[in-house]
């Protein structure tokens, strides 16, 4: 049951007063309490000096060795504990090493059928002359996929931590500040970069493409290309590199390379698990177009690594492309 109150009656109820208080239309203390404007707290010069003197003395009291006996004791104990801890750690590590099997023994766990199979059948099964590449990109390709993803995640983390969003209101001082430290039109550096960068990048591409024929592979080749790009950036500045490499380029590059790797490896996992003959030919060992998917996987890893190295450098330099 509810009945409608007249305005005079309603003004006497508790809910009306509560609502008034919530709205702020009525201050219950207004008229009941005496209010004064607050006086500004003024600190005289003498007072401030006294306070600073006291602060200094208290700091002296805590940190001065002659004043504080506890600190003295702690410092001595700290040194003793440090030495004890180091000795203990070294002793533990040496003890653990002494339990390891001796180097070159016949019955060591390293000498099992896995490595023997890799060495004996590696060339036939993977088609790669370089056994190491055959191992990491064929037998252990899943590990390498994880490695590439770790790199990608590391770049994402750096982008999140160091990247700053460009807002229209903020002035572009940060980029200009960075430009101060950058060598501007340094003739020697620019000439050296002009001579060095093309061979470096070509050598990186060679290392990637011949990963299954000789020493090298995606990771090292990608790192070399990334180093070349960093040298180019240092010599000629961001304006020139931004013509061909921006954040968008990096995103497209790395995501497509990782996706390509995933697809290629899923295909070989699928065929391998279901005992289906793979369509991709292994080719003659030693030819550039051989060893099945390894060349493609090397290129994917190289693209991811090169982009990651360059992006790291750019993020460290100015926190954004």
């Amino acid at each position, binding site marked *: 049951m509810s009945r409608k109150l007249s305005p005079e009656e309603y003004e006497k109820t508790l809910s009306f007063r509560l609502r008034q208080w919530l709205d702020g239309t009525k201050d219950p203390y207004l008229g009941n309490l005496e209010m004064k404007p607050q006086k500004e707290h003024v600190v005289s010069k003498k007072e401030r000096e006294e306070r600073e003197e006291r602060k200094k003395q208290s700091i002296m009291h805590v940190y001065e060795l002659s004043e504080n006996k506890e600190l003295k004791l702690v410092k001595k104990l700290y040194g003793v504990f440090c030495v004890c801890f180091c000795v203990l750690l070294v002793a533990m590590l040496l003890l653990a090493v002494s339990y390891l099997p001796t180097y070159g023994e016949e019955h060591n766990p390293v000498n099992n059928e896995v490595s023997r199979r890799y060495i004996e059948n590696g060339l036939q099964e993977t088609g790669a002359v370089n056994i190491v590449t055959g191992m990491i990109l064929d037998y252990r390709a899943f590990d390498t996929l994880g490695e590439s993803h770790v790199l990608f995640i590391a770049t994402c983390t750096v982008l999140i931590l160091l990247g700053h969003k460009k807002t229209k209101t903020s002035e572009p001082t940060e980029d200009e500040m960075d430009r101060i430290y950058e060598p501007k039109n340094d003739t020697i550096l620019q000439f050296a970069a002009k001579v060095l960068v093309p061979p470096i990048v070509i050598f990186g591409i060679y290392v990637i493409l011949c990963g299954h024929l*000789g*020493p090298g592979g995606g990771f*090292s080749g990608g*790192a*070399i290309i990334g180093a070349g790009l960093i040298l180019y950036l240092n010599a000629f500045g961001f304006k020139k590199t931004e013509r061909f490499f921006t954040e968008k380029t990096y995103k497209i590059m790395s995501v497509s390379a990782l996706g390509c790797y995933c697809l290629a490896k899923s295909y070989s996992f699928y065929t391998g698990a279901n005992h289906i003959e793979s369509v991709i030919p292994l080719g003659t060992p030693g030819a550039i177009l051989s060893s099945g998917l390894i060349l493609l996987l090397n290129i994917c890893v190289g693209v991811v690594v090169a982009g990651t190295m360059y992006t790291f450098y750019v993020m460290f330099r100015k926190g954004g492309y």
Partner: protein
Amino acid sequence: MTVFTDILLLFLVVCAIAVSLSKKLMNAILIFMSYSLVMSIIWILLESPDLAITEAAVGAGITSVLFFVTLKKIHAIEQFEEVEEDHE
């Protein structure tokens, strides 16, 4: 050849100790760089050129460059130069 390897290994140990003892961050990075270079030569002597290429590119190249950039950003390099100028 073994003498050469021994010299390189000794150099590695000296470098590793020098990095931890050097007061200037800049010097520490330079020593770390040379450590990586010697390490890559040792990888070649151990007949693993794959690792040698990677060590030279990543250890001596990119890691040190990133360290340099970080030092520059936290103004560690400039500060040292200012201190030296003051002494002069």
